[in-house]
């Protein structure tokens, strides 16, 4: 199987979200995803990075998002987003319910997460600990998004 891995690091800022989603979209295009799938992948990455900016880093200006893309020819795309912001537990966010949207007002919680989960075939959130060579521990969040061809 032909596998290609590419990565990009962006500042965790709202005006960088299109850079992240455009980067992943280009790789997905080369894999041969349909126009509809490309739109879904682009939107999922955009929403995932927006959540990191808004929630993990709470709009702090010095955060970064590491984006790793594994393109498995003829099979799938695996997108991994890593940040070192606050731990994120999707279970703490009220689930968006499209059947109850008429009751919602201007604040619609969980919409971004709902889109991510609907757009991708597999979504995994992890909050991890790592040890570096100096013996220091660091915590990071890892979000994995998978879309099958």
């Amino acid at each position, binding site marked *: 199987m032909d596998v290609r891995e590419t990565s990009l690091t962006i500042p965790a800022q709202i005006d960088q979200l299109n850079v992240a989603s455009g980067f992943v979209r280009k790789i997905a295009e080369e894999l041969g995803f349909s126009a509809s799938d490309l739109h879904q992948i682009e939107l999922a990455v*955009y929403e995932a990075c927006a959540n990191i900016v808004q929630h993990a880093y709470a709009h702090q200006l010095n955060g970064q998002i590491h984006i790793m893309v594994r393109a498995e020819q003829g099979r799938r795309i695996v997108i991994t987003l890593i940040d070192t912001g606050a731990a994120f537990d999707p279970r703490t966010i009220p689930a968006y319910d499209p059947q109850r949207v008429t009751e919602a007002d*201007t604040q619609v919680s969980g919409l971004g997460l709902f889109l991510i989960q609907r757009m991708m075939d597999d979504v995994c959130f992890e909050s991890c600990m790592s040890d570096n060579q100096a013996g220091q521990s660091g915590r990071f969040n890892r979000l994995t998004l998978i879309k099958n061809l």
Partner: protein
Amino acid sequence: MTSSLSITSQSLADQSVVMLSVAGRLDANTVSQLERALMDAQLSGYRVIVIDLGELTYISSSGLRVLLAGRNNARKRGSTVMLCNLQPAVQEILEMVGFSAIFPIFASREQALAAALTPSDHEH
């Protein structure tokens, strides 16, 4: 890739209907433009606000929130927000999040305008 959005406002019929033509990408970087256009339209007292999304290529959750807020604020003022001319990718998103059940959505500008001029046909 950069965000770019343009909105053209056109007053129609007997000045009770306004058409907002939205083109480009509606995301966190551009959403304030639509927010402002919707606010202006509501303050101007239009009975119906028709949003033509024919040239909208992308919508994020920020854009969806502003559409919903615009619809809810309009209802409080007794007016209606309609959508028309959706591209397939945008329509797919609106259906997924349940907006197709709460917004009057029309295939073309002409159909939306015809409904806008018939008040009883577009209550949601």
